[in-house]
């Protein structure tokens, strides 16, 4: 499977989850990532470590749930078993990527 397909599934999942929280949530995250200017959605996977920190800062304890939903949704879109759910979005994405390689 193409890397772009994985990235797109992740971007859609994260943006849908954030939009469901509230109208401004997605734009707040994109704006914080870009240091005041919204970065394009397509570049989300390039900022995984920063997204982890921003979600923690913005949503506190609830960031863990947001990360879990994003991973469950990405796994469902890619028809893969979800990885073990933890605190780090970066690690869960890496684990999901390796599940994808194992599956193909």
């Amino acid at each position: 499977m193409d890397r772009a397909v994985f990235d797109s599934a992740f971007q859609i999942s994260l943006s849908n989850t954030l939009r469901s929280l509230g109208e401004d949530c997605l734009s707040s995250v994109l704006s914080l990532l870009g240091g005041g200017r919204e970065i394009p959605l397509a570049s989300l996977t390039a900022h995984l470590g920063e997204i982890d920190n921003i979600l923690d800062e913005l949503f506190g304890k609830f960031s863990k749930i947001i990360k879990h939903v994003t991973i469950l949704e990405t796994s469902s879109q890619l028809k893969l078993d979800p990885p073990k759910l933890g605190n780090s979005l970066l690690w869960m994405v890496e684990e999901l990527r390796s599940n994808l390689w194992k599956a193909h």
Partner: protein
Amino acid sequence: MRTPNITLIHETVSFCFDQVLSTLGERTKRVIYDFLARRGIGKEDLSSRFEDAEGVLVELYGQGGRSVMIGTLAKLCEEYSIPLNLGYSDSLGNRMAQLAENILMQKLIPKHFRKDVDTRAFEDKSGSYAGWSD
């Protein structure tokens, strides 16, 4: 095996909600249950009063509180192996209603219930066939 019915969906929604709350810690979980109970929303009412519960959590924690309800829907979809697709609906309450309708129409059984039934069946069998039992 029990046929899928509305009671099983209610039970599964409560089970998923409880699992999501566990990620926040036992104290926060207790506070949220207390808060909901004070508003007349019991554990067994969560699926029928999904939007009310969402309102209470948003009132209590702001937009982050809504993540508990989104997490509950995500776990519910995992339980029934169906896609979450949050973009399909304008509100979480409507998505909950759509999912419940889908589950009933497709007669789906949640994973935790299947595991429970399998374990009970295995234990019953091993109990009655075990050499040391009468």
